[in-house]
């Protein structure tokens, strides 16, 4: 880690002029399980620009899949706001929700078997979203073949999922997800059931799709390989975004391309900031910290006096 800075409400390096494709504002999601209330998201903020390829990472139970469900219109937040491509997901009618699912988003799930209908061929699966959207048969067929070709499976178009490997199934799932030219594809642990090399292939495909189609891709994953493929990694902790890692490629003095990753702490709209665990542990920060403002930065000091108390 090189530096730790706090972007104020916007993603670092992003233009303020263009409206974000995804905007989560102080999202709260509380599940009720039996008599217990589980707070999955507690004031999460997130902005994703169009064309981005981001990864959302976090520990199990951190709330990342809950976030994905809300973004996919499969779940509704308990509080806060969420907009995707001008769709206010809190205020959708049934028809709007259907339209949103058909045209704005695409999904790639973790379990390969649940990404596709097992009784349809690869081509028929890819055609499915277009069929649901009323696409003409000729167009559907042409588009499906184009997409399968894009993910390298043109020769497997008539195979059923059970006749395809896990990686091939996920590639068909990606082709299916982008069939209707969605604005954004949500992928939930798309490599969770795959080996390392196949996982790399899948991320390559997603990256290719992102670059060639310009579709925004949001991946929820534990896979460390993802870091090499995404522009931004958003870490979620305890139901909030805790940090972001931005990657950019620079040309050094010798003319070689070099990827630089910078981790940022995230400052929410009310000024809350999550300090990285290692920082907290290193300085044994507890309960209260002392802040001092300098002209260009803020200093955080352990509250020694308080500790002594």
């Amino acid at each position, binding site marked *: 880690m090189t530096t730790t800075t706090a972007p104020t409400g916007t993603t670092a390096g992003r233009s303020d002029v263009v409206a974000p494709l995804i905007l989560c504002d102080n999202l709260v999601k509380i599940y009720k399980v039996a008599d217990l209330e589980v707070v999955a998201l507690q004031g999460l903020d997130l902005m994703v620009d169009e064309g981005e390829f981001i990864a959302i990472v976090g520990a199990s139970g951190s709330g990342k*899949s809950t976030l994905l469900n809300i973004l*996919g219109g499969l779940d509704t937040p308990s509080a806060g706001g969420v907009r995707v491509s001008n769709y206010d997901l809190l205020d959708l009618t049934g028809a709007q929700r259907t339209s949103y*699912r058909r045209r704005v988003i695409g999904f790639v799930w973790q379990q390969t*078997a649940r990404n596709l209908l097992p009784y349809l061929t690869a081509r028929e699966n890819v055609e*499915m979203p277009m069929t*649901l959207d*009323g696409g003409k048969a000729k167009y559907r067929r042409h588009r499906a073949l184009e997409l399968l070709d894009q993910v390298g499976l043109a020769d497997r178009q008539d195979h059923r999922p059970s006749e395809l490997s896990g990686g091939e199934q996920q590639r068909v799932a990606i082709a299916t997800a982008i069939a209707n030219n969605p604005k954004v594809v949500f992928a939930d642990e798309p490599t969770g059931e795959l080996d390392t090399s196949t996982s790399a292939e899948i991320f390559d495909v997603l990256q290719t799709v992102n670059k060639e189609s310009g579709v925004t891709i949001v991946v929820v994953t534990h896979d460390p390989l993802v870091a090499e493929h995404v522009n931004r990694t958003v870490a979620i902790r305890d139901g909030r975004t805790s940090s972001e890692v931005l990657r950019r490629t620079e040309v050094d003095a010798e003319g070689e391309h070099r990827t630089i990753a910078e981790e940022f702490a995230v400052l929410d709209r009310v000024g809350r900031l999550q300090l990285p665990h290692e920082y907290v542990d290193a300085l044994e920060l507890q309960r209260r910290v002392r802040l001092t403002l300098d002209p260009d930065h803020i200093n955080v000091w352990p509250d020694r006096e308080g500790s002594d108390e």
Partner: protein
Amino acid sequence: MANRLGSLSLGMRVIARELRSQPSVVISIAVTTLIASVLLAAAPRQLEVVSAEDLRATVSEPDPAQRNIRVERFGRLGAGPDDDPMRSIRESGDFFAEMEFPPSLQEIVSDHYYLVDTPRFAVSPMPGEEPPHPFPRFLSFRYQEHIDDQSMVVEGELPSPQDPITMLVGTDCPLDPDERAALEEELESGAVQPAEDSCRLEDVAHYQVAISARTAEDMGLEVGSQVVLTPDATDPLFNGIPTDALAYQIVVSVSGIIELTAVEDEYWYADPTLHRPTIRETADFRIIFATGLMAPEDYRSMLSTMGDAGRSYVWRHFVDPDLVETADLDTLQSELEPFLLRFTPVVARPTDYRVISQLSDLIQSHLEQRSHTVAMVSLAVAGILTVVVTVTLLLAVLMTGRQRRSIVLERNRGASRGQLTLTRIYEGLLIVVPGALLGFLAAALLFTGTDYLFSYRATTILVLASLLVLVAAGLPLFTRRLGSLQREYDNSFKSSPGRVVAEVLLVTLAIGTFFLLQRRGEADDLTTDGEFDLLLALAPALIAVASGLVAMRIYPLFIRSLGWVASKRPGVVGFVGFKRILSQPSAARLPVLVFVVCVATAITTSITADSIRGGQETGSWQVVGADYSVKGFGPDVNIPGSVDVESLGPHSASALGKTFPNARIQAGVRSARTEALAIDATSYQTLTEGTAGDVALPAFLSGDPGPDAGTASNPIPVIISANWPADIDPSVGDVITLDLGTLRLQVVVRETRDRYPDIATGVPFVVVGLDALATFDQLSLTPTVAYLRATRDAGDELAANLDDQAPSARLISRYETLDSIIEDPFIGWAVMVLQVLFYFAVTFAVVAVVASLAVASSTRRRDLAYLRTLGLDTGQATGMTVIEQLPPTLVGTAFGALVGVMTALGLGQVFNLDVFTGGAVPAPIVIDWTVVVLVAAAIFGVLAAAVVIFVIVNRRVEVSRVLRVGEE
């Protein structure tokens, strides 16, 4: 042992928990078993109750002359001592009963008495008296044992012995009282000696009789009346006696008027002889045959007075229904039949004993009816078992599907096939046995029959069958490769060769059974007669199951065709829906089998019941010939002279007819006895039109036949019976002679029929137009029967008016005939059993709708959830659910209805339904399409409701939870 079994299985606690995890399925199977158990245990018990009821009705309701034993002989039995002159008659009867009655018959006879009838005598007024009316009168003497207890004297006194009367006897005696008195005086004083055979004074036997008021009225007699009797030489009891030996006279005086205390009492044996005279009458003429009660003390005197004339001795033995109920019917029947045969010889001397009874026929009829009912109940039992087994199989597949994950887990952890099978047997016992036991106990408490053994067997078969299907449903998961089971979607459950062979065998057996039974029906060799026919009992169930299996095999082809059509059309619903159906394992097609079995059972049952009802209606028309018929009691009543049909009461149509019970036909040199009916064809056709008794009479029976009708040059067209004795076989176009007693006609056969209304089935008949006979203008051709079309409510008024107009005529009601058929214990119960089976099958078809929706619900829910993430809307989700559920329901219901109809049409004749119609007519198979439509409507109505409920529930399910996205 329990521990060993426990270690072999997965443990009862685990099993119980697993069952508790899916209460709806477990309860459904248990309730299904419970209902079936109640029905199966109740059926044989109730059969015993109904059988006892029918037996009691059989031996107590018909005419006493039919159900009891009448022993008779002719001749002269000597008189006993003065204080017991009838002793020899009584002892003779007792001796015969003791020596000849088989033991089983002696056990059921509770009482008996004797009676003796003298020959018939012509009645004349005492010399010099005027007869009360010009009609011939005849009188017989009778003494009947125990009559003192069954009658009372309302005027005068009982007869007693009288001294002879001295009176003028001879053919040339004067009629004038004064002349007679003078001649008597002269003869008495000896002043005149009479020549031989001329008028003379003789002591004439004098007897007293007591007669009924009705007899007194019809005979023109009263207490104190005296008449002279002379032997009626036409009476067979005078056969063989020279004419001159019959030239004697008897004086009879009426000592009193008696009243029979209860004419309907069994004691009277339905014999009205002492109650009222028998009258043979025409419009303007009548002959009266009366019987008077004699004094027993006169028996000895009469023996000498009447010389060699015979007597008719009758001993009436009464059968006690209570004793018959407890008797061994098979033994009784086996002894009774040869006994009756032995004492009912075709040729017998008058002095031989003859036994007259229809008890054997009645018992045989009861046994046959019972056998037919057992066959019908067996059909129902087989139907119930088949429905229950298929429905339980469907529920078991549902249960197994839900246990799939845990079974895979258990196998992963080392559970063997044996352990899993034993576990399933435990599960099955836990689910099935309580329901079956409860049902058995409920039936035992609610139904009082005593056939415990059969009940126990039926319940045991039910438990074993249910257990078998529960285990069979789990076997694929216990035995398939674990790898294939672990896949979420696994449609690799291909039919094993063994299963295919078993299905082919079953289908072959069903086809063979169908054609074998059909040939039996065509050959009229109906094996249900007398004996239980297992093949017949199982046939409909076997055919339904085989058809269901065929439907399951055809079903994918049907779906593939629909899928191909759907793939050519825009829209995702049909395309994905049909693809989804084809992807499902064969177990998911089980609803097709269940629908076929349930619907086929319901439709076959419904058609059978409807056919029986239709047959009963037709049968009542066949028996009566109209809603009401008017006939004479015994001898004919001339309708135009005695009854004014138009003023009888409310009726919408009427027709007259004339019956000739003893007509004959002659074809060439051969002749045969027949019953002939002359009918007013136009009126009768109008009367029956649009009813179950529509006879469709041809036009040739109406109108004037023209000149020389009834001669060879112009034979009268007739309809004749299709069945004649072997030596005569008139056919259409033949000209034959019809002998109506007073008229011989040449008739031409224009049509043959198996039966004709109001003529007993099996009796040869000839039907001629009444118009044709009217041209002959003979009194003997006057109509003797009137047919009326009227409502049930009109019966009382018609009966009352008829009684006023012609007491000797009777009104026969078709409605009462129909009621008696419907209320027959066996018939009523058999129809009820069919109704129960119908509702049972329909109910479980409806249960199958819900179960079939649940069978693939988990994968359907997941697929719909996935498709919702792609933008599937609610309408499309509903459409897909409908697409998935409609075909099996549609195919199963349509196939089931078709199989039900075909089974009923193909095997209806073999079911021998005519025995449930009152036996008069064959029951044609009646298909009530309304019922078919209603059954389909019930099934599709429930399907629609179930789909709506599923879609509503499914909408509430979180897509993410179904797809199990993420880790939270």
